[in-house]
């Protein structure tokens, strides 16, 4: 807890890598844009953008920022859940956030066609999906929290979250059964996740909620470290378990909730990044782990996004598939190499 110095070099390295991959990320795509062009566009008049400047300013830059927010936010909320539930299999979505969001989106996409007519065109806009996903995850999370407040054991919350996930999945199945092929396709496309759909004004809302989530996370650092001893010891050290638990859950919901609302359900990052970070940093101290998870999550997400773009082609692969395709082998490789899971 006192020795932060040896880690400083790692952090400097991670920050350099993050900047490097941000630059690579914005210069790659169906057309390649040079670094100087990107840099100059900041000083250009928006009304006289060249097409490259326009692509950079209005598409690639917001996409890169989204990638950084999504990767770091999912990593951090995964770490929070793993420490709170003392379970290496926990991820940002164990509390039913994704299932709630997918229920909301499924209701809008597949439910609106049942209502038919003019409503369809009004309901299916970008914002309506964001609002539906937020409302869905908020409602499911609220139900999980209300039920959880009746139980003492933190583990029970994990099970309750999983149960609610099953219920919403079942409702989505029923909806899918009755909906048309086009609606089903649209729903599945939402499930692929997407980093590139955000405009600047959406990004502002995203970033504000995200920052609030980070504040709750930082306020929980001491509690997280105390929880490493187990709940009973933490209690004997004067920690207010219920309040800390609430703070950690709020932080996770804000982070993972907005990410799912704006970028869709992005798998794997939240589960894997904390593991990769623990293997690299070999510590359980959250004062080190949190910033490390933050940086590593952002870097991995940028890499995944660059790959998903398939540089110099017109294709974009679903980001949700890339994160797992790239990430899972890395975790397996780390575990096999170190022969030990650090938790």
């Amino acid at each position, binding site marked *: *807890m*006192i020795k932060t110095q040896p880690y400083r070099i790692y952090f400097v390295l991670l920050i350099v890598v993050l900047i490097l991959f941000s630059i690579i990320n914005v210069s790659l795509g169906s057309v390649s844009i040079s670094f100087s062009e990107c840099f100059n566009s900041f000083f250009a008049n928006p009304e006289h953008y060249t097409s490259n400047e326009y692509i950079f300013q209005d598409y690639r830059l917001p996409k890169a920022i989204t990638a950084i927010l999504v990767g770091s936010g999912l990593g951090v909320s995964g770490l929070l859940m793993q420490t709170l539930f*003392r379970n290496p299999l926990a991820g940002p979505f164990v509390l039913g956030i994704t299932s709630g969001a997918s229920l909301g989106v499924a209701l809008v996409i597949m439910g609106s066609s049942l209502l038919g007519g003019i409503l369809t065109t009004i309901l299916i806009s970008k914002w309506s999906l964001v609002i539906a996903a937020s409302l869905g995850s908020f409602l499911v999370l609220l139900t999980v929290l209300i039920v959880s407040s009746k139980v003492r054991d933190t583990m029970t919350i994990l099970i309750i979250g999983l149960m609610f996930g099953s219920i919403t999945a079942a409702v989505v199945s029923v909806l899918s059964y009755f909906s048309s092929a086009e609606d089903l396709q649209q729903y599945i496309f939402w499930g692929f996740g997407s980093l590139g759909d955000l405009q600047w004004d959406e990004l502002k809302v995203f970033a504000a909620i995200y920052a609030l989530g980070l504040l709750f996370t*930082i*306020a929980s*650092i*001491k509690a997280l*470290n*105390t*929880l*490493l*001893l*187990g709940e*009973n*010891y933490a*209690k*004997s*050290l*004067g*920690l*207010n378990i219920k309040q800390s638990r609430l703070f950690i859950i709020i932080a996770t919901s804000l982070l993972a909730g907005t990410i799912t609302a704006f970028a869709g359900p992005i798998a794997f990052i939240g589960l894997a990044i904390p593991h990769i970070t*623990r293997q690299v940093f*070999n*510590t*359980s*101290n959250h*004062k080190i782990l949190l910033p490390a998870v933050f940086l590593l999550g952002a870097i991995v997400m940028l890499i995944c996004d660059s790959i998903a773009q398939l540089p110099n082609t017109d294709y974009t692969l679903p980001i949700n598939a890339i994160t797992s395709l790239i990430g899972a082998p890395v975790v397996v490789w780390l575990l096999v190499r170190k022969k030990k899971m*650090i*938790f």
Partner: protein
Amino acid sequence: MNKYNQHIILDTKNLTIGYASKKAETIIASNINLKLHQGELVGLVGANGIGKSTLLRTLTNVQDSLGGEVSIKSKLLQTYSSIDLAKVLSLVLTESVTSKNLSVFELVALGRQPYTNWVGNLSETDINITNTALAQTNIENLKHKKCYELSDGQLQKVMIARALSQDTSLIILDEPTTHLDMYHKAYILKLLQKLVKNTNKTILFSSHEIDLAIQLCDKLIVMTKDSIITDTPKNLIKQGAFNSLFPEDLIVFDEKIGSFRVIK
């Protein structure tokens, strides 16, 4: 004697312990009157299921009492805030810590949590107290080891060091000698005796090592179905308190050697 009385650390009056549900109360023991003074090593002995853990859980405010009072340093247990209680009472539990990836120093330093700032940074005082706790338990050489590298005996010393670094007048340990070999059982209890002498803290522990407890403790609390007696080991032997501790069909207490033996 008067001065001695002023240093009562733990005090119970007509305490009743047990479990309460909506329907009924299950009383495990009642009329418990204990007085633990500063600088005493006190052992709590009794058969399995007699209520040792329930008593300890009640004394440490993990569980509510069914009646009577518990005070620590002449202040009622219920009136302590959780952070203030953490400054007078530290625990060593039977459960192991969640993250074995902590280093020994990190784990012991976590005992300073009630005193550190909102983000948990250690001040120089905190580091000094942590180092003293490591020295008092003879584990300075393990300082940089990870907890998963330790043996059960070493880990128990680390947990005791953690309780010490919490800097409380009272330390309560729940069966600190389980899982340990004969040597380490004696070692841990002897260590507790040394700590009581050197630091003038009060240490209460539950244990099944009755023969060791008789040799090392200043006082013993003997729990049986009918009564809870507190006295020095010598007096307890004289009163024959150990004879009724267990059913007498298999083992009997031998007053000459101060230990139990199997009936042949």
